[in-house]
């Protein structure tokens, strides 16, 4: 710490704790000590208090205790001469600051007005944390940047966040400089800011920056499986963040009325001191004092005076980020940050597919002689010949060749087309196979985006990601209505053959299952075992995906595991699998059952698509997905349920699953399978209905789907039982679960 920073941070901590105390006193005067205080949809109470104090804050009165602890942490401001060591003190002041800021932000929810509104999003709930967290987990996002302040011009703001998006860095924004925040600058430029674009504006006040840190705190609890409670746990959570969550703070522009050698407000330094406890360094574009020696962070703690043009590169160095910068030869920015970006009708230049035209994508393996690497062919009108606002047909035909390539991998690579194309700024893509829908924005068209650029993206990305199995890629793009028809029919036939092949594959058919330890960077004790009939709980990795992944990189996160002797065919337990998980979970697990929810079920990293939980009253199970934020009949929301099973622990009665597993014949088959399902959120039920109906048809239970309750039918056990009785749900007559 430079003494200037230490002094400022400690002063800031004092001010913020005072402010929080005042705000709390007012809130209690208004609502009483017993009034509830909580963030929406989280199982982690106020995560900062849970992390540092092991405290489960539920009512306003609890916050008095939190602030009393914060006050105890407040050190003296270093003296002008013969000062005492201040590094540790400053870090403690940072913790006090975060407790104060969490109090101030939580009070906004308890007392109002709520912090979310306009462009500000406020607290990130657990569902989003899990959904987005997986990207930090599997390395798709190298880290996150918490931006505090503003840039000189709006142009610089746009360039900066585009640069961060291109490098797939998640961006949090909070705080302002001289009354102006970078999020406001971006809003003026019409930049879409939400979780889809990885641009997350938390709030205008610096206190909202605490949301990036309560996000980080929950990452450790969710994915790291660290049970908060005491000082040791707090330390482990902070070190988890230092070692695994590659985040950093960008402090942009100076604040008015601050001393010349300080430049940035006391409160911002105080918040930065809190972030440094997590190992998150600060990089600034103004000339603040630097803290170069390392130790609390992995590298430098505060680096200053970095020109905006270099700030991302420098930040990556300071935080030790590995960035794969992808230079795709297209005229628009490219990166995962653009993957979830929408193109609204009014911003659209042209569109393809959806309900308007025929459009599909198909990837086939060919003989090398038939594939001219890098060849891109456009059949039909290019974008220059298209009319604004119109819909055109589109065929995306990708041919690949490679010595190691197998036909089984076609669908694996094809499924990535969505992600590859979506990552271009101003291009919207959804769906797969023959149900795709694409839009090109006016902005992209203005920048010179052409139809052939879809080909450029695919050639570059497929080479990039699948270099070990694919040597040649060529792309044909058809925009002519007549020319699309025939290949589309052929494509449908291919899809159907593939489905038959994969749908027919059972766990008994194969010798090897695949492991997935992709999440071990975040959840070190968790290991997924992926079988043909049970895909990874994140929903992203089927058995075939894992097989392909192993082909691509034999030392990667997926490897084949010989099943060995079957110890229990009903519950799904194999000797070699047990031995393997014992080693790979660092001795955490001795055995698990692939098909059981009750006895030694599979563990979860934390990024499951759905949770399946038993409902003892109904003698069945419910399934809830992470998009559903309402109450379930077991009296817990998704977020609370999720808190029970993440981090590689085995919790009988609860299991994290991928959506596709619901229609698998092996779905909790040890307990009776699909007929045990008594409740699902309506949206989930609709989403899986197609596949599920097919499955039910096979077992002659087509009537079951209607008997499964949704939130419209029941939110409590009593309502659920009543519904099930009326509907005559089979679970009620099955063997007792418990």
């Amino acid at each position, binding site marked *: *710490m*430079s*003494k200037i920073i*230490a002094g400022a941070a400690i002063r800031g901590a004092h001010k913020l704790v005072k402010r929080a105390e005042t705000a709390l006193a007012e809130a209690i005067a208004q609502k009483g000590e017993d009034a509830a205080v909580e963030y929406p949809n989280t199982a982690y109470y106020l995560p900062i208090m849970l992390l*540092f104090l092991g405290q489960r804050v539920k009512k306003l009165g609890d916050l008095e205790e939190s602030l009393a602890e914060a006050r105890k*942490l407040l050190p003296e401001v*270093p003296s002008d*001469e*013969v*000062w*005492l*060591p*201040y*590094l*540790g*003190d*400053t*870090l*403690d002041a*940072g*913790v006090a600051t975060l407790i104060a800021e969490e109090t101030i932000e939580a009070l906004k929810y308890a007392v109002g007005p709520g912090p979310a509104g306009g462009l500000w999003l406020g607290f990130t709930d657990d569902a989003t944390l899990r959904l987005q967290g997986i990207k930090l987990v599997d390395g798709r996002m190298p880290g996150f940047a918490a931006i505090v302040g503003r840039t000189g011009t709006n142009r610089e703001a746009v360039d900066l966040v585009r640069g961060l998006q291109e490098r797939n860095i998640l961006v949090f924004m909070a705080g302002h400089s001289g009354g102006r925040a970078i999020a406001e600058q971006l809003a003026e430029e019409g930049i879409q800011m939400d979780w889809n674009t990885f641009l997350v504006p938390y709030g205008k006040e610096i206190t909202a920056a605490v949301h990036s840190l309560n996000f980080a705190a929950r990452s450790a609890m969710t994915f790291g499986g660290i049970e908060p409670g005491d*000082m040791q746990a*707090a*330390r482990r959570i*902070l*070190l988890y963040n230092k070692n695994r969550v590659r985040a950093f703070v960008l402090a942009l522009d100076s604040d008015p009325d601050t001393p010349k050698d300080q430049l940035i407000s006391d409160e911002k330094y105080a918040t930065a001191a809190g972030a440094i*406890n997590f190992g998150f360094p600060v990089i600034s574009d103004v000339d603040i004092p630097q*803290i*170069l*020696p*390392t*130790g*609390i962070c992995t590298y430098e*703690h505060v680096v200053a005076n970095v020109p905006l043009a270099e700030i991302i590169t420098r930040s990556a160095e300071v935080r030790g980020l590995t960035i794969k910068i992808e230079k795709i030869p297209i005229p628009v920015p490219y990166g995962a940050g653009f993957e979830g970006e929408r193109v609204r009708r009014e911003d659209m230049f042209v569109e393809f597919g959806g309900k308007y035209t025929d459009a599909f994508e198909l990837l086939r393996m060919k003989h090398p002689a038939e594939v001219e690497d890098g060849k891109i062919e456009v059949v039909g009108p290019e974008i220059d010949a298209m009319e604004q606002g119109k819909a055109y047909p589109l065929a995306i035909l990708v041919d690949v060749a490679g010595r190691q390539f197998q036909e089984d991998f076609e669908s694996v690579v094809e499924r990535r087309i969505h992600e590859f194309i979506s990552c271009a700024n101003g291009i919207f893509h959804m769906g797969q196979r023959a149900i795709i829908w694409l839009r090109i924005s006016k902005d992209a068209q203005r920048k010179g985006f052409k139809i052939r650029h879809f080909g450029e993206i695919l050639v570059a990305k497929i080479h990039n990601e699948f270099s070990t199995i694919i040597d040649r890629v060529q792309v044909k793009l058809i925009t002519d209505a007549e020319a699309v028809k025939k290949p589309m029919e052929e494509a449908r036939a291919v899809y159907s053959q593939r489905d038959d092949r994969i749908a027919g594959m059972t766990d008994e058919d194969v010798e090897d299952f695949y492991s997935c330890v992709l999440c071990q960077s975040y959840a070190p004790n968790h290991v997924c075992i992926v079988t043909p009939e049970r895909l990874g709980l994140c929903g992203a990795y089927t058995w075939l995906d894992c097989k392909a992944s192993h082909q691509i990189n034999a030392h990667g996160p997926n490897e084949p595991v010989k099943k060995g002797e079957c110890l229990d065919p009903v519950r799904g337990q194999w000797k070699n699998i047990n031995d393997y998980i014992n080693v790979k979970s660092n001795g955490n697990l001795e055995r698990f059952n692939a098909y059981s929810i009750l006895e030694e079920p599979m563990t979860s990293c934390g990024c499951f698509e759905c949770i399946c939980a038993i409902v003892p009253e109904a003698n069945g199970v419910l399934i809830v997905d992470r998009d559903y934020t309402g109450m379930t009949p077991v009296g817990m929301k998704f977020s609370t349920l999720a808190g029970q099973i993440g981090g590689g622990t085995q919790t009988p009665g609860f299991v994290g699953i991928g959506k596709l597993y619901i229609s698998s014949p092996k779905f909790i088959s040890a307990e009776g399978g699909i007929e045990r399902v008594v409740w699902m959120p309506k949206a989930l039920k609709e989403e899986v209905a197609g596949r599920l109906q097919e499955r039910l048809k096979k077992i002659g239970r087509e009537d079951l789907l209607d008997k499964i309750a949704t939130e419209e039918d029941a939110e409590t056990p009593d309502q659920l039982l009543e519904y099930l009785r009326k509907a005559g749900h089979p679970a009620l007559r099955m063997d007792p679960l418990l």
Partner: protein
Amino acid sequence: MAAATATLEYADRASREMRERAAARNIPTIWDRYEDVQPQCRFGKLGICCRICSMGPCRISLKEGKPPLVGACGADADTIAARNVARMIAAGTAAHSDHGRSIAHTLRLAADTDQADYQIKDEDKLRALARTYGIKTEGREARQIAREVASAALDEFGRQEGEMVMPTTAPAARQRVWKDLGIYPRSIDREVVELMHRTSMGVDADYRNILRHGMRTALADGWGGSMIATELSDILFSTPRPLRSTANLGVLNPRHVNIIVHGHEPTLSDVLAVMSRDAKLLERARERGAEGITVAGICCTANEILMRHGIPIAGNFLQQELAVLTGAIEMMVVDVQCLMPGLSELAKCFHTMLITTSPKARMPGVQHIEFREDKGRAVAREILETAVDNFAHRAAEKVYIPDAKERLVAGFTSESVFRFLGGRYRATYRPLNDGIMTGRLRGAAGVIGCSNPNVDYEKGHIGLVKELLKNDVLVVTTGCDAIACAKHGLMRPEAAFAHAGQGLQEICRAVGIPPVLHLGSCVDNSRILRVLSNVVAEGGLGEDISDLPVAGAAPEWMSEKAVAIGFYFVASGVYTLIGQPLPMMGSENVRRYLTEEIEQEVGGKWAFELDPVEAAHRMIRHIDGKRQALKLKPMMYAQAFKSEG
């Protein structure tokens, strides 16, 4: 021997002024008496005079051209020199350890009743130490635990079977070295007794065998007696935390009753320091015409109460007489160790009352008020009241207090490093290890030890320390070197910007520390062992203390305690440099063993160098060698001294 020409030209201003003042008044001090004993016995200096039996004294001639002689019994220079050095180790170990033993007794007293004058001040540390001894802590009261900890500590002294427990806190690799060499200590008293036995007439004649047991004895000091003294003192009197204070004779207040506490143990001085703020006593002082009471320390008693209470330091070993010479001292209360008998004559020139308090350390003709732990407060009150009453006898015309004092930051411990580097939640040594690994810090050095009239006062300490700082070596210090550094302003955090290299400056600026860290008294050298163990445990700098880029020095050593300390550092794997050589230079074999061969056995070795800058360079060369062996990065910034190769 040219030592008699030693000057005070490098010393602090207060010492120079007071020395001149004494000379002007024809009052002899240590420097005068030192001149009077010249020339000193050459055989004694070289360690080749044997008087362990009455066939002797036998002196071994070193005249060139003649075969080396042997003593009457046939003992050669090697045996004699080794025995002499070993007996110094025994004495030093005994001194530190006896100090540790009395603290252990005090802890037991505190455990017996909550009415005792001593109570448990650091329960966390008590519990941590209990875990070392395998004592159950869960759900138990502090006093219950303290009783067993005190017993376990006392067992370390007299254990008849098995080995000591405290050294199990050393890095595993280090313990293996000791076991392999057969020098893992068994019990403190046993090693001292065995050493005295081995070196008595007609027992051990193999110089290596003698010195290896010397190391074993020294380890029983550093990782035993001294460590027990430090750990239990922290439990009883609280573990120090960084704090501010002042040092040098200028801390004495002409309008106050001035009481000097001098010696080494905190038991009495801690109570004295606390009780001197008692309202009734202050009232009594005012009635006698004084405006207040100042307690200030000399030597390691000073360091003990400085570290825990911020009590100012009047001076170090060579300043004990100079303090009396101010004529402003109502009372000098002494306990044990480093007390010059010459004080008694000197005190007679002033109104100063010299009071001995330990039954182990009395002086003829000096008033004795015996201190007992079971009535600490009562004795302290008696002493303080007597001192206050003596204010009336002060002769104003004899008072001269030099206007010299310096501010300082002290109170560093192996525990506080964790806290001030990482705060409550990220408590860590990482920034220190990182500092060394990335080349901001070249390494660290412990500079400790006495002052000695045989060298220019403080030239060795300050010259060495400044040269180390200039080359980005962080310095930790204890004892009289610490006081020297304090007086010279090196313990102000600002000193980093005046004296340190750029890398060290950056570390000091980041953490807010002075470039020289005060770790306490001479038993607190055990804190340095703890720091080194913690650095090893933090990781990245090897598996053992001997892998670390560190070195130790006692440039102006004098006491037998310094010999014991030096040996336990060498045996712990540390390169240890002292100014005047150990008294064994009459034996080439012993010299070679201690300065060369011993490194193969324990990783550390001895070095002797009087020139402070060259001494620093030799330490830095060693540090650079360790950096190379660890394949650490080159230094981040240009270094003032470049070691070749």
